[in-house]
């Protein structure tokens, strides 16, 4: 179809002067009636051009509702309501004439509905509280009158059962049987607010949906009217909710009111009511009416026709994937239409009455011959041949299509370009190839293909003319938006990127770009790439190119035409580069490095690993680290480990590697450094307990910059750093300091000292943690989980606390839950082994059903032979626990 599908819809009609507020689509899907106070308009959707016929209407009332007769028998009839009257119009020979006028209501008519199967029956409801059922064969008075007491806002015939109809009255639904007109057969208190819309299910005669001011759509079943089957909640009052003719979808529009930006239709899958499946955006004002177009055989897409207050009529294509989202799997098109669209039941019956209609004959009769630039010359069913003539600009193609007997069940028709065609061989071959391909695609699903092939032929020829799209595949031109860009907003949308590079993972660089032969389509004025998308439009308009696409901007028209056709569609490539050479972080090293064991072993091993990958600087660094960080030598009296330069050296090593962005080495050194700190700390504590060692004093002065006096005091007093009472000799020496002062300074020194040993690298320690985390992240991306865990063990602050189900032990003495193995308050071990009755330290297991447990090894042994709990509580621990997790 050469229609201008803008993404998912095309504008079928734009009529500012129509002021129509009612719209109806006829059963064949060809005609759309728009009705307003001044005009009726009929739009023929099969015509390419915006062909609209307008008929003036003399009335002082607006049109309330409009509907075409849903049966093929009276497909020419449509009914409108005008204040208290119903007018039945007949559309015949391109003329619209009023044939009946039905008057009985005494107040304004709110809604009307044709009977779904009987072509002569019509129901209407009004503010006067009556619901009338009319028979067109006797239009003087209603054939049946239903008295509802309350005013009715909607009336709907059941789609499957010929006697049932439903009406809505404020928040309630009444269901009537036309054989028993005195009272409703059922009464459903559906909503608390006013019901705006009502629709019967297309598949079940007992189900219907209501939508209301209270922002919900409720689904009821008449067999259980007291409670809604399920409820769909939206964020605005719902004006209409209607079942889709496919799957279990539902389409909604919101209430037209003074809200902005709510002009879209929502498609829901009733099986999944959390979010809409799709939003149809395109109208600039509220949607007044929407209806489904009768599905053409052979067309995989349903079409939705919408009329909005912005006076545009849009035709939306419901793509197969959207149908799929609503739980609909397309089958053979004939079956589908009759099964899912009960409106067509009658039609189907008629068809069946004719004995054995050949599919080809049917296809011929249903073929829409109004294809632009195409003339169907003959359709010969007995010979199974169809010949057409397409004239597109200077191309003329005479095509003959021959249908084998087995067509369309897996056998495609034959296409042949006949004499009298004015195309070169190249074009003809390409055309045939395209047609064969499309035909094969369709018949492989047992679908007919004539109409789509003919349309495809015209499209292909047009495209060959316009000449700018040789880089495309022709398979799905119908879906391809011809104009994907355009609009006033584009001036602010940045010009699309067509090349780029992104670093991903640890060391890959993802690049994409235009192929090297692609040249920019630029005029002399244009030197740099434009900034906004709208520039595309301007430039391409100058070039009189029909295609508004980004590729058209880059690919220029080649001089030679033939060369152009033979050009293969260029490949769109993405390159992945390995950039690991740019970074110092090395995957092999990450695998080889160790962190377990004592510091000397770690450093030696890691130095060797560095040598293997050829990083000699690392060998040196590790050797240095071993020298600095190995606290073993303290015992040997080697003072190097406690030398003031020690920690500075380590720090500067780390900062050197971090400034080189070698996060791996920086993090590894941090871990090793942390290990050394722990050991030092442990040793210092040991020394503190036996204050005879001189070793730790040497640490202190180097880091102190306080006055000599303090230092002196320290020297004197620090023989016992934890004491706050100064030794008598300080005072005895005759220092002028009052004793209190001395005490104070001594204690502060004490604090400093202990702080000092713990966090020598205090200001930068956070950064060290980040190094470890960053390196752990890298390891995680590489999948080196074990190595990552090793690094994370060296974090000084805990990882995030476990959030989720946790099993805690209650202390057997204090009855308080404890996360650790010993109780927080009484410090006793919390769990007693049920087997050996000794407190458990280490690996333990408990039954989560009865709570008994103990040493893992004891329980293993026990459950090898038994299946009940060792406590004797009778719990079958293994089975019950299994059941618990089995759910």
């Amino acid at each position, binding site marked *: 179809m050469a229609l201008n599908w803008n*993404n998912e819809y095309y504008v079928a009609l734009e009529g500012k002067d129509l002021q129509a507020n009612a719209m109806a689509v006829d059963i064949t899907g060809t005609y759309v009636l728009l009705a307003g106070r001044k005009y009726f308009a009929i739009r023929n959707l099969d015509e390419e051009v915006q062909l609209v016929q307008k008929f003036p209407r003399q009335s002082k009332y607006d049109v309330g509702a409009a509907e075409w007769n849903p049966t093929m028998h009276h497909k020419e009839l449509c009914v409108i309501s005008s204040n208290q009257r119903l007018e039945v119009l007949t559309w015949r020979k391109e003329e619209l004439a009023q044939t009946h006028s039905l008057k009985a209501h005494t107040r304004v008519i709110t809604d009307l509905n044709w009977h779904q199967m009987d072509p002569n029956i019509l129901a209407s409801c009004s503010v006067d509280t009556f619901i009338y059922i009319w028979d067109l064969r006797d239009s003087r008075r209603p054939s049946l009158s239903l008295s509802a007491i309350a005013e009715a806002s909607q009336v709907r015939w059941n789609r499957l059962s010929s006697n049932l109809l439903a009406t809505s009255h404020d928040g309630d639904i009444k269901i009537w049987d036309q054989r028993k007109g005195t009272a409703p057969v059922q009464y459903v208190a559906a909503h608390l607010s006013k019901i705006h819309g009502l629709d019967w299910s297309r598949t079940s005669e007992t189900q219907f949906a209501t939508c209301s001011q209270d922002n919900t759509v409720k689904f009821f079943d008449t067999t259980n009217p007291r409670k809604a089957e399920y409820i769909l909640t939206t964020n605005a009052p719902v004006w209409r909710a209607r079942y889709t003719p496919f799957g279990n979808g539902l389409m909604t529009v919101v209430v037209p009111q003074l809200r902005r930006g709510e002009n*879209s239709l929502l498609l829901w899958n009733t099986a999944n009511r959390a979010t809409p499946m799709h939003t149809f955006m395109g109208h600039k004002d509220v949607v007044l009416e929407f209806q489904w177009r009768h599905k053409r055989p052979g067309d995989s897409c349903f079409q939705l026709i919408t009329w909005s207050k912005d006076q545009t009529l849009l035709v939306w294509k419901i793509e197969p994937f959207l149908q799929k*989202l609503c739980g609909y799997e397309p089958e053979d098109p004939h079956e589908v239409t009759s099964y899912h669209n009960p409106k067509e039941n009658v039609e189907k019956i008629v068809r069946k009455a004719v004995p054995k209609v050949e599919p080809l004959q049917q296809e011929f009769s249903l073929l829409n011959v109004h294809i632009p630039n195409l003339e169907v010359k003959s359709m010969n069913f007995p010979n199974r041949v169809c010949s057409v003539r397409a004239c597109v600009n200077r191309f003329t193609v005479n095509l003959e299509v021959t249908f084998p007997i087995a067509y369309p069940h897996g056998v495609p028709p034959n296409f042949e370009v006949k004499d009298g065609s004015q195309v070169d061989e190249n074009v003809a071959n390409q055309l045939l190839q395209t047609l064969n391909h499309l035909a094969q695609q369709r018949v492989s699903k047992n679908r007919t293909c004539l109409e789509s092939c003919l349309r495809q032929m015209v499209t292909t020829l047009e495209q060959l003319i316009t000449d700018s799209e040789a880089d495309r595949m022709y398979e799905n031109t119908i879906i391809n938006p011809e104009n994907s860009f355009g609009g006033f907003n584009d001036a602010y949308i*940045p010009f699309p990127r067509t090349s780029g590079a992104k670093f991903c993972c640890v060391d890959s660089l993802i690049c994409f770009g235009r192929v090297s032969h692609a040249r920019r389509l630029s005029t002399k004025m244009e030197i740099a790439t434009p900034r906004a998308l709208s520039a595309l439009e301007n430039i391409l308009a100058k070039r009189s190119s029909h295609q508004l696409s980004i590729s058209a901007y880059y690919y220029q028209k080649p001089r030679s035409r033939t060369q152009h056709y033979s050009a293969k569609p260029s490949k769109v490539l993405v390159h*992945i580069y390995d950039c690991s050479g740019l970074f110092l972080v090395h995957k092999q090293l990450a695998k080889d490095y160790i962190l377990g064991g004592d510091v000397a072993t770690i450093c030696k091993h890691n130095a060797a690993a560095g040598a293997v990958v050829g990083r000699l600087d690392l060998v040196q660094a590790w050797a240095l680290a071993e020298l600095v960080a190995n606290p073993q030598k303290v015992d040997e009296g080697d003072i190097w480990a406690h030398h003031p330069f020690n920690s500075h050296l380590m720090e500067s090593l780390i900062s050197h590697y971090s400034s080189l962005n070698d996060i791996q080495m920086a993090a590894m050194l941090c871990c090793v450094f942390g290990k050394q700190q722990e050991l030092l700390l442990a040793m210092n504590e040991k020394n503190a307990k036996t204050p005879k060692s001189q070793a730790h004093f040497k640490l202190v002065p180097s880091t102190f910059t306080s006055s000599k006096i303090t230092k002196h005091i320290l020297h004197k007093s620090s023989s016992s750093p934890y004491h706050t009472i100064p030794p008598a000799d300080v005072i005895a020496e005759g220092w002028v300091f009052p004793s209190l002062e001395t005490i104070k300074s001594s204690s502060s020194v004490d604090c400093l000292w202990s702080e000092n040993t713990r966090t020598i690298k205090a200001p930068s320690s956070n950064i060290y943690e980040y190094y470890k985390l960053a390196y752990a992240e890298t390891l995680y991306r590489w999948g080196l989980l074990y190595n990552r865990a090793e690094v994370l063990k060296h974090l000084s602050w805990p990882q995030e606390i476990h959030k989720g189900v946790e099993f805690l032990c209650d202390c057997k003495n204090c009855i308080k839950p404890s996360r650790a193995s010993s109780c927080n308050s009484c410090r006793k071990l919390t769990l007693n082994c049920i087997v050996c009755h000794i407190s458990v330290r280490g690996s333990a297991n408990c039954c989560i059903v009865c709570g008994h447990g103990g040493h893992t090894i004891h329980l293993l042994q026990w459950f090898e032979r038994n299946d009940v709990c060792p406590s004797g509580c009778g719990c079958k621990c293994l089975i019950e626990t299994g059941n618990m997790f089995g759910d």
Partner: protein
Amino acid sequence: MVSLLQSIDTGHEDMIHDAEVDYYGLRLATCSSDNSVKVYDIKNGNTLLDDLKGHFGPVWQVAWGHPKFGNLLASCSYDKKVIIWKETNGKWGKYYEYANHDSSVNSVQFAPAEFGLVLACGSSDGSISILSYIRENNTWDAKKIQNAHAIGCNAVCWSPAIYPEPAFDNNSEHTLKKMLVSGGCDNLVKIWKEEQDRWIEVCKLEVHSDWVRDVAWAPSAGLHRHIIASCSQDRRVIIWSSDDAITWNSTVLHTFDDVIWNVSWSLNGNILAVSGGDNKITLWKQSLEGNWQCISDVGKGSSQINN
């Protein structure tokens, strides 16, 4: 230094606008003007895993989520929508659709996993949306920074979750502050910060003389400060650095021959990849003295590397 690992023929019918590899480097996602998003397995023979259709306009950008939230992919399009796709049992499907922008959505990015499952979207309607997944009731909460950039927002990028905070306390609950950087048609780069459920503008950086096309916040590993790269229609790339994320110093990296569309930092190390309208890619690195040097050109199409 840089070697071509593989080339993948994406089979897109039109230009592609973005490509990204997932967290582990196993899968590639691409998006194109042909309205589709494609996912490839790049570890086992470059096979097409899925062709995601759901957008009705050119798809501008794709972003992978952290694997701890499942296999998530976000895409944004000219059709004003953001779609989050999820893979379940090998099949990709629509997980969430966000259609609350009034114009083309130009940029999407998932926040670092430490912030939870959060997505930022920048749109030509001038606003930035922050979508957060709420696990309790399985819903998405949308916060919108209205009028973040006059005329339009072109790019958003999250701050790394790991960054040096001066007051770092072992005991106190350390809550990471969510921060964002964005660039737009008002020639500005803006820094945003979440405070008590509201997003406030921390500062705006004004040096670029034309539309800002991309912003990238450097992963701070190994750095003692924040670094942001921004690129613009004015053909310049600017490096912004700061110690406290409030006052920023700018350095012009280079003025290129054509407009610059992309800047991207490497995960480890301070290498920046720059690409733009001239179809070239350059890699930049800061020397120990603080100067920026071009270390290589990655030629496109010909897959040539010129060191």
